[in-house]
């Protein structure tokens, strides 16, 4: 069945700033470390979740974004994520330690989809997951795949977007997709919001 779906909320984290629906809602000094930025954001949004501190940078970014995007999600909210660098930050950390007591707490984060596990635990989502990797955000494909999950009733809503964290920088862009809203969920809208 062909029908329209809607983007009802978007969140973006870049350059130590957090935007919700294009509005700047939090920022720190640009020169502080990403870890410090994340810690300040965690406090600012009152996310009381001690496990946060154990996560790698990709998961911390995803956690903050998902908490800002919406307070609660339906249990069958699908997660469709993409990035360019997979789990590069944790990979590098693990690689440096493989000859000298590798840490299980680091190794567990050497898969990009762990962020979906963390979000699923936090928001109690027992839903569809798919993590894709590409050099640039494939808005067309991500929209297509997400929409097919919704159309086939494999999910009643979805969080989709781009979660990039590499050794130099990060760029996070998540969207909440549901059956009713103002902005039609299309590849064009998604790409426009991503580049904005």
């Amino acid at each position, binding site marked *: 069945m062909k029908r329209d779906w809607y983007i009802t909320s978007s969140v973006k984290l870049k350059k130590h700033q957090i935007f919700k629906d294009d509005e700047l809602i939090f920022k720190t000094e640009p020169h502080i470390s990403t870890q410090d930025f994340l810690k300040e954001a965690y406090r600012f949004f009152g996310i009381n979740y001690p496990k946060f501190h*154990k996560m790698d940078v990709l998961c911390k970014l995803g956690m903050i974004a998902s908490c800002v995007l919406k307070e609660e999600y339906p249990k069958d909210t699908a997660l469709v994520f993409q990035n360019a660098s997979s789990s590069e930050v944790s990979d590098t950390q693990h690689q440096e330690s493989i000859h000298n007591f*590798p840490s*299980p707490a680091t190794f567990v984060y050497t898969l990009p989809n762990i962020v979906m596990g963390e979000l699923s635990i936090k928001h109690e989502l027992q839903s569809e997951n798919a993590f894709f990797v590409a050099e640039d955000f494939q808005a067309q494909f991500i929209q297509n795949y997400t929409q097919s999950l919704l159309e086939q009733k494999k999910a009643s809503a979805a969080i989709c977007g781009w979660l990039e964290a590499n050794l130099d920088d990060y760029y996070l862009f998540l969207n909440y997709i549901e059956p009713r809203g103002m902005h039609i969920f299309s590849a064009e809208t998604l790409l426009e919001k991503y580049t904005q």
Partner: protein
Amino acid sequence: MSDLRLELKEKIIKQLNLEDLSVEDIQNDDFLFGDEIGLDSIDALELIVMLEKDFGIKLTDPAQGKEVFTSIETLAQFIEKNA
């Protein structure tokens, strides 16, 4: 408090990123796993690495870990006996 027990608390807080806890919050007899300190299975594996790296003790039987890691006290006694 003995130095070893204090040292273990500091190490655990640092290595397991227990950001919201301080040394004073952990009693020697608190259960490390479960409600009091709330460590999980990855933390247990991390403690096994810590034992080997910092104290030169290799835990070969994973089942042994359960007893050893009950509390700071049991962990300290195990180290004192085996180091």
